[in-house]
């Protein structure tokens, strides 16, 4: 799939490389910085593409933490697979080293080479599951390596098993499973408080502390899921993406690879052997139009710029949720010009902080009871000499809002049951469920 994989710094200089196939000259990557430069120059025309084809070589790369991961290939490869592989590589390395950046690459080159060897062979992706890789590629060999060959670390069975995500022989004294149903709300609100677009991104997360090879069955109150596709054949369409009178319309359900997809497709049953520890068993997306007519947290903001001297901001925030609910850790992030100074804040409630490196101010409200409204005034200085490059840009930047509301899902989805069955061990087990609604990455209010 890929002939070579490179880790490069932000300027395109290689940090670490692996050649899998030998069909591309090894100095080819040296052209990358120049190609990047050419691309950057075309950026303003919108000609930029995250892929380059130059002299018969395809450069496919993704950007992460000021690093480039780049795959080279001569063929018309499956580019989506390559990109996802590269992102998996980032994911695995991040789980190995906490964060992936120039320094962690330099410091861990031995392990990275080993992982590259194990994750791809002759350009074909192999194992990309960190849990399994960690079984036999460790950063701390001394614990595992014994004096003789017999005791050497072995490839875990799981690598080649049908159940490639769980090893045998896991044992817990107390068998527990924790479920978190997390719904993230993305919302685009215009300056007058109208909702332009909204969606719920839901996730059911599992933390499994279960022994043996347990088989789990998850029951939800989603009508769509539990209606068999054959039941309404006459209507000419099957259920997953279809509106149902009382049930919740889930779109775009995605399952962890442990879930038996065909079982779900045919019988609408979610069954799986879970990986050990934490993972997301399923995710879904809902168009929120049917649940959310108005913003959960409403922000209104007026900005007045006095050129060469100061900027004034008047902001109000209202929790449009049930009176008995409380929003926690509410953050209203308001963009301000890059060259502002001398902040003065007067919040009615909560605290305001200037974050100059991000060119915004953050108004934090730790707890925010439903129905309440608060105001905040801010004033910052602006330099006498205006920044020649400061265009309209910062004015158009939207306000971002973060929050979380516990004990409640916006869609109303509920876990009905989680049945745990380990055929051999037959143990007693305890499922726990929590619900939370929170802001997604993109809960934003447009400014005028």
């Amino acid at each position, binding site marked *: 799939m890929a002939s070579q994989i490179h880790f490069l710094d932000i300027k395109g200089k290689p940090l670490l490389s692996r050649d899998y196939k030998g069909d591309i000259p090894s100095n080819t990557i040296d052209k990358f910085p120049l190609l990047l430069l050419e691309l950057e120059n075309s950026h303003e025309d919108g000609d930029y593409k995250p892929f380059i084809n130059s002299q018969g070589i395809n450069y496919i790369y993704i950007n992460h*933490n*000021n690093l480039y991961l780049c795959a080279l290939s001569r063929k018309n490869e499956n580019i989506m697979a390559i990109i996802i592989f590269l992102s998996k590589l980032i994911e695995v390395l991040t789980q190995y080293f906490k964060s992936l950046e120039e320094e962690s690459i330099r410091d861990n080159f031995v392990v990275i080479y080993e992982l590259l060897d194990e994750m791809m062979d002759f350009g074909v992706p192999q194992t990309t599951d960190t849990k399994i890789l960690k079984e036999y590629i460790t950063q701390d060999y001394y614990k595992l390596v014994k004096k003789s060959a017999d005791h050497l670390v072995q490839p875990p069975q799981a690598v080649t098993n049908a159940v490639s995500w769980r090893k045998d022989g896991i044992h817990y004294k107390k068998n527990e499973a924790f479920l978190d149903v997390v719904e993230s709300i993305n919302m685009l609100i215009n300056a007058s408080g109208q909702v332009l677009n909204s969606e719920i991104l839901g996730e059911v997360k599992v933390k499994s502390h279960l022994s043996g090879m347990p088989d789990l069955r998850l029951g939800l109150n989603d009508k769509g899921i539990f209606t068999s596709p054959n039941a309404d054949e006459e209507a000419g369409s099957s259920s997953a993406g279809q509106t149902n009178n009382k049930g919740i319309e889930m779109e775009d359900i995605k399952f962890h690879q442990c879930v038996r997809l065909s079982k779900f497709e045919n019988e609408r049953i979610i069954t799986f052997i879970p990986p050990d520890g934490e993972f997301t068993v399923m995710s879904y997306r809902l168009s929120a139009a049917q649940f959310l007519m108005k913003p959960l947290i409403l922000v209104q903001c007026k900005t007045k710029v006095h050129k060469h001297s100061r900027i004034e901001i008047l902001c109000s925030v209202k929790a449009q949720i049930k009176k008995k609910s409380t929003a926690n850790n509410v953050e209203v992030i308001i963009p301000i010009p890059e060259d502002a*100074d001398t902040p003065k804040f007067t919040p009615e409630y909560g605290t305001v902080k200037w974050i*100059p490196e991000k060119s915004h101010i953050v108004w934090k409200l730790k707890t925010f009871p439903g129905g309440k409204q608060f105001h905040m005034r801010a004033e910052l200085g602006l*330099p*006498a*000499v205006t920044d020649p490059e400061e265009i309209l840009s910062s004015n158009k930047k939207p306000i971002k809002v973060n929050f979380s509301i516990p004990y409640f899902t916006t869609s109303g989805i509920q876990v009905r049951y989680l049945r745990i069955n380990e055929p051999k061990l037959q143990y007693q087990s305890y499922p726990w469920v929590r619900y939370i609604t929170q802001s997604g990455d993109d809960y934003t209010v447009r400014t005028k």
Partner: protein
Amino acid sequence: MGSLKSFIKAVRKAKTIADERAVVRKESAAIRTSFRDATLDQTTRRINISKLLYLYIMGEKTHFGQVECLKVLASPRFADKRLGYLATMLFLDENQEVLTLLTNSLDNDMQHPNAFIVGLALCCLGNIASPELARDLYTNVEKIITTNNTYLRKKACIVAAKLVEKDPDLSEFFLQKIPQLISDKQPAPLLGASKLIQSLYYASEENRPALIKTIPSIVAHLKRVTTSGYMPDYDVMGTTDPFLQVSLLSTLRILATDEQCPAEYLEQVNDILTQVASNLESGKNAAHAILYECVKSIFAIQSDQSLKILGVNILGKFLSTKDNNTRYVALDTLLSVINIEPLAVQRHRSTIVSCLSDGDISIRRRALELSFAILNDQNIRVLAREILVFLEGSADSELKPYATSQLVIAASKYSPNDKWHFDTLIRMLKVAGNYVTSDILSNILALILQCNDGELKKHAVTKLLSSCLEDMSQFSLSLITIWAVGEYGDIVLGSNIEVNGKQVLVDEKKILQLIDDLINNSTYSENENVQLISYILTSILKLSIKFKDSQSIEKLRLMLNSRTYDSNLEIQIRAVEYQEIFAQDAKLKKGLLARMPAPPVKERESLSLNNSSNKKT
């Protein structure tokens, strides 16, 4: 807020670019806020400015510190002034509005009893003077330029040069100082005077006669420097003051190339160039720098034959050195020699050609431009071949439009015969058809139109056709082919051509196939496609009277028809008009579509590489 040192350390400690940005932005914010503090002590102010300097080096914004710099340099203390001026020169340029606030400080400081403070103000003015500042402050400079203090005089000269550049009307005040300035024997003021002479020379033609009169003095200075013994302070690897020598030589060149330069002066210049060039021992960069400057002068002024030979020999030596920089400047200089000593340059042809495949783009650029410069009717076959090799093999897409244009121009001038001419152009289209400018493309089509030899025309069109059938990825080749097929379809129909080693009969089907492939399988940019389709439409119309088979003709009509809704205006207009013509009676059509008369022959001037690179449409 900590010290500068702790700030720099904090920046360096940041492990990621994001961390670094955070440290920098936070500090920048703290500095901005600190500026608002009216009670700030001078030390903190200085630290703020120093930190801003560091931000500046890192490419961060510093516009908000401009006013603060002006405040700091207005302080009476030297340390403040020094730092204030340093920062002002970096943060401000002649376009900044706050520059007017600087006038007063500069005025005061240039009259300061302390020479170093005067020096700072001069340096600042010299770096960032605007036309207004120049007019406001020239009298100060006028005064300083006659001071006895060498340190200030040398600076004042360069500042004066700058002021004259900003406002040529100020020339008169400094022109009269030249005789005195050029009689100075000290190297530094001479450097300044030399610069001032150059500026005055370019500022106004009126200045020139007076300046030319300095030639004997400059020659004398050069003589003195070259014959002086070892001067440790000015010696660079055995050469005395190469900076001064180069500066004087370049001034001399400017003055001596002036039409009004009298013959006796020219003779003096010739002599001194001979002397400088023959007395230098080459091998070291400093010496090469002077030799290089001499050679440039030798070929710029009216010089003796013997001197020219000397110059050519020096370049020959340069070309044969291992040092790439010397080789580079030699290639660069040969370009200006070509008109004066063409034969001498021709001798280096093989070296030049070999540089076309050098690993260094700087060398390749020079070699390419030189290759075209030495191209003539004697060597065109050889050189054209080399250039085609370059076009095919090289990855320098920025050089290719230049190379194709030049090749076409050169081929028009020097081609040994018409057949060779067409064959070369078609080969060029095959290897670099995506790097041909629209102007040159028209030129190639015009050449075909102008060709009166029927056999040759047929040869050209069939060759185009077979090349295009082999490879449709070269835009200009496709465009020219499709036009030629439309205009001369009758000539090629029925002939056999070779495509990828196989014999192929050119019939109506084949041509329809070609059109179809060009429309459907080509992958040109949107703009190119519009042009291609436009050409195709005209060809279709022309072919409609050349085709015999009614089915083929109907296919042509359908092709026209399918474009009558095209979102591109030009294509739509064409398709609709042509559709109407298509429906007219045969006699009228024959008249309308008779052979197109040839366009006027246009002479094209050779281009230089720098001007042509941005011309690609």
